[in-house]
């Protein structure tokens, strides 16, 4: 059998670029990282969601810390805030939006004020002065103190109380007292009773690195100068300024001004690197079904009590999007939302030298497309992983080991086990039945029954083609093999006169439609047309229908299967994720080969949907579920009254394919195949069979080792166990077999193992 060339070296220092635009285009569809709606609407960028979460948990200290991060004087801000967040609260769509401002006020009242660093806090070197008073000057001083600038406020007021009173006349006595205490606790130097004149300004220009000035003073001293509102900066005069017209405006302008000061202090252009400052529309998706408490807790005159605030904050549904993480066991396994995982996978392809740590996650995606169906923005993880795999193959950086077994299986399907023949007695057939490699491997009797039925009941003749559609190399990212497979299949279909393809498997249908094209229907479509065989009957108990990922987005196929099930008399149990939203069985994308652990988790997750037996219409699904110990039937088994029984092991799967080919060739086309008979007796212990299945070692590999041993006599004897040990390099791996020899031509295999590294003797 043909071999696949192993990559020559690990020393490949080239990458095929994936453009930043291409990557961003795919990655930005994921809205997991998007700000919640309340946060996006807030000019101060308060992390409202986190604050409400802390408040709901009764942790007012943490809630206040979060609030103070956005608002340096929380009581002033909460009293004067117009709460744009409340209008954007998603609860407004199904009930009353959250009373965020009232909760904030309660947090400001009941929370414990944060102390920043104290005397040990390292100050920045550049000095800043603020000239004037009012809300802007107050907030700006607060923001700059938070950024650890040594800051001095020069104001006309005689003391701190009068400075704070300026613009905060609306505060009640209690709130004023608390804010005064907060201001006193801040590390800000004050110079009171200043007469701020042009000379005074000139003097301070020299004394300080950055100078800030309230709008009132700015207008009085420099009536003709203009400033850029986006930066709160007058470039001409080198002054940072802002207005105190309203609480929110002043607070927002102080935030922008503080960023400008920060940039100026570092001698950087204040126009650059400002990030998202203005409120914006969030793209986040929220599942509103989590909303339970829809009515607001009414606030008393003095605001919420602690308990009321906790209760109201508890109504927050903590907007976040995890639609894909809820449904996909693969994403759940890696605990990364698709935006981040995709970025990491793309970066993995661009590594010139070093470890490709994301190879495993990249090869563990089943490429099933469920995430795209459940994502509100249609994020396509399959496209990301498939692109990355092809990219790595193109630079010869893709390891062969994870996919080699499956690829060799495909070569076997389209080589030794391949069969293409017109219906006996029909020269040019109207149809060709293409059951798919897994159907033949898992349920050969069912395939045979289906083919004989089609031959009997369809007009125009039905040819048969046993082979692989090419999905295997497509999934592995081996695009050159895929092109070769396409060419091969095109030729074979052409030899049969390009008949209408009747696919037995939805993945084959999809893959063949994309590669060879032409008219392709499913066997389910044919059965809908010609009806079920007379003795077809369903199960005597309800079954859960598992939709195949090959049929995602193919509503007619999904509906045809449901209709067939109904006609068979099967009572179908509805599951949460079905139709286009169905999960993969774990076989897709070659996950079962590249990462058996993740594949098992995916299968388990798919099975958790129901306790009923599973009915599927892809033989790989049937096999995965049965292997996990669940009663699992393919719809064609019910249609033709066959039972594929216990799942075959990897060697039996190959045997089934060869055997069906041999059987059909003999019975239908009267061609006898020479039987490959061993001239010795070969047996396996149960343990050996189990080990071989888990380690992907075929009976053919064992036979190769024993043939080599018989030819050369090369083996060793382990005195401790009494076992003989022989080996043979087959393709890219060395296989070792431990056996006993009860009689000269009789071998009993006890264990088998393999390694890919080649071992040689060395001299010196």
């Amino acid at each position, binding site marked *: 059998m043909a071999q696949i060339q192993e990559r020559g070296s690990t020393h490949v220092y080239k990458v095929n670029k994936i453009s930043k635009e291409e990557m961003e285009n795919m990655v930005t569809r994921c809205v997991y990282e998007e700000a919640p709606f309340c946060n996006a609407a807030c000019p101060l960028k308060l992390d409202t969601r986190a604050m409400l979460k802390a408040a709901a948990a009764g942790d007012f200290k943490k809630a206040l810390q979060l609030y103070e991060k956005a608002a340096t004087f929380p009581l002033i801000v909460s009293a004067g805030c117009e709460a744009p967040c409340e209008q954007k609260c998603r609860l407004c769509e199904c009930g009353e939006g959250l009373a965020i401002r009232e909760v904030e006020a309660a947090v400001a009242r009941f929370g414990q004020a944060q102390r920043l660093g104290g005397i040990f806090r390292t100050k920045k070197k550049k000095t800043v002065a603020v000239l004037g008073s009012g809300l802007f000057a107050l907030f700006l001083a607060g923001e700059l103190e938070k950024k650890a600038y040594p800051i001095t406020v020069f104001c006309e007021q005689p003391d701190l109380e009068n400075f704070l009173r300026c613009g905060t006349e609306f505060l009640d006595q209690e709130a004023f007292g608390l804010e005064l205490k907060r201001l006193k606790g801040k590390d800000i130097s004050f110079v009171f009773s200043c007469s701020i004149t042009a000379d005074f300004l000139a003097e301070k220009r020299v004394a300080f690195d950055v100078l800030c000035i309230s709008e009132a003073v700015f207008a009085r001293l420099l009536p003709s100068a203009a400033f850029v509102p986006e930066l709160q900066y007058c470039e001409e005069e080198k002054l940072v300024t802002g207005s105190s017209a309203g609480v929110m405006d002043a607070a927002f302008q102080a935030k922008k001004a503080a960023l400008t000061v920060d940039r100026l202090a570092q001698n950087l252009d204040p126009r650059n690197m400002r990030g998202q400052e203005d409120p914006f529309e969030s793209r986040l998706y929220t599942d509103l079904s989590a909303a339970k408490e829809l009515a607001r807790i009414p606030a008393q005159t003095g605001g919420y009590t602690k308990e009321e605030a906790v209760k109201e904050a508890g109504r927050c549904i903590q907007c976040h999007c995890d639609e894909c993480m809820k449904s996909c066991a693969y994403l759940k396994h890696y605990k990364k939302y698709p935006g981040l995982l995709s970025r990491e996978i793309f970066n993995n392809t661009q590594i010139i030298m070093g470890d490709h740590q994301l190879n495993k996650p990249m090869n563990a995606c089943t490429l099933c497309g469920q995430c795209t169906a459940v994502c509100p923005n249609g994020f396509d993880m399959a496209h990301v992983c498939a692109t990355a795999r092809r990219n790595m193959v193109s630079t010869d950086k893709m390891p062969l080991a994870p996919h080699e077994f499956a690829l060799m299986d495909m070569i076997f399907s389209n080589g030794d086990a391949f069969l293409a023949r017109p219906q006996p007695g029909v020269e040019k057939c109207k149809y060709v039945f293409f059951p798919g490699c897994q159907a033949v491997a898992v349920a050969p009797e069912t395939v045979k029954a289906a083919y004989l039925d089609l031959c009997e009941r369809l007009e125009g003749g039905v040819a048969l083609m046993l082979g692989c559609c090419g999905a295997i190399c497509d999934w592995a990212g081996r695009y050159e093999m895929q092109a070769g497979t396409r060419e091969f299949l095109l030729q074979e279909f052409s030899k049969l006169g390009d008949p209408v393809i009747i696919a037995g498997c939805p993945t084959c249908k999809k893959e063949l439609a994309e590669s060879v094209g032409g008219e392709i229907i499913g066997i389910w479509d044919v059965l809908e047309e010609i009806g079920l065989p007379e003795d077809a009957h369903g199960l005597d108990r309800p079954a859960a229908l598992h939709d195949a990922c090959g049929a995602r987005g193919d509503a007619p196929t999904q509906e045809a299967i449901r209709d067939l099930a109904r006609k068979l008399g099967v009572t179908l149990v509805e599951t949460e994720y079905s139709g286009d939203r169905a999960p993969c069985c774990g076989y897709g994308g070659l996950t079962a080969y590249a990462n058996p652990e993740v594949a098992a988790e995916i299968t388990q997750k798919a099975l958790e949907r129901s306790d009923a037996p599973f009915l599927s219409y892809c033989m790989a699904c049937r096999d995965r579920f049965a292997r996990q110990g669940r009663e699992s039937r393919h719809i064609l088994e019910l249609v033709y009254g066959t039972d594929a029984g216990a799942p075959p092991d990897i060697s039996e799967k190959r045997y089934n394919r060869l055997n069906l080919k041999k059987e059909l060739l003999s019975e239908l086309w009267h061609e006898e195949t020479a039987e490959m008979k061993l001239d010795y007796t070969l047996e396996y212990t149960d343990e050996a069979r189990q080990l071989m299945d888990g380690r992907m070692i075929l009976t053919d590999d064992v036979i190769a080792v024993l043939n080599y041993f018989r030819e050369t006599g090369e083996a*060793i004897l382990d005195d401790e166990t009494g076992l003989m040990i022989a080996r043979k390099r087959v393709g890219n791996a060395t296989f070792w077999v431990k056996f006993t020899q009860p009689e000269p031509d009789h071998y009993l295999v006890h264990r088998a193992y393999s390694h890919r*590294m080649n*071992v040689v003797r060395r001299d010196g």
Partner: protein
Amino acid sequence: MAAERNYYTIDPEGKLQCVKCGVKLIKGKAKFMYLDNGFPVELPVCPVCGFVYVPEELALGKVLSVEKALEDK
């Protein structure tokens, strides 16, 4: 001259014998090769025919983990 480095050493301690040559395996020099990388080791070797034995524990342990590490390079 610098001391020779071996990545792995197994001494058969006289418990293994070559079926073909009928002699005990001895600790001998061998080399693992994979994806253009080589690792000198000492494994049970037949002093006559040169058969190199890779025990199951080694193949499924150290060898497998080095294979995986190299594959992801």
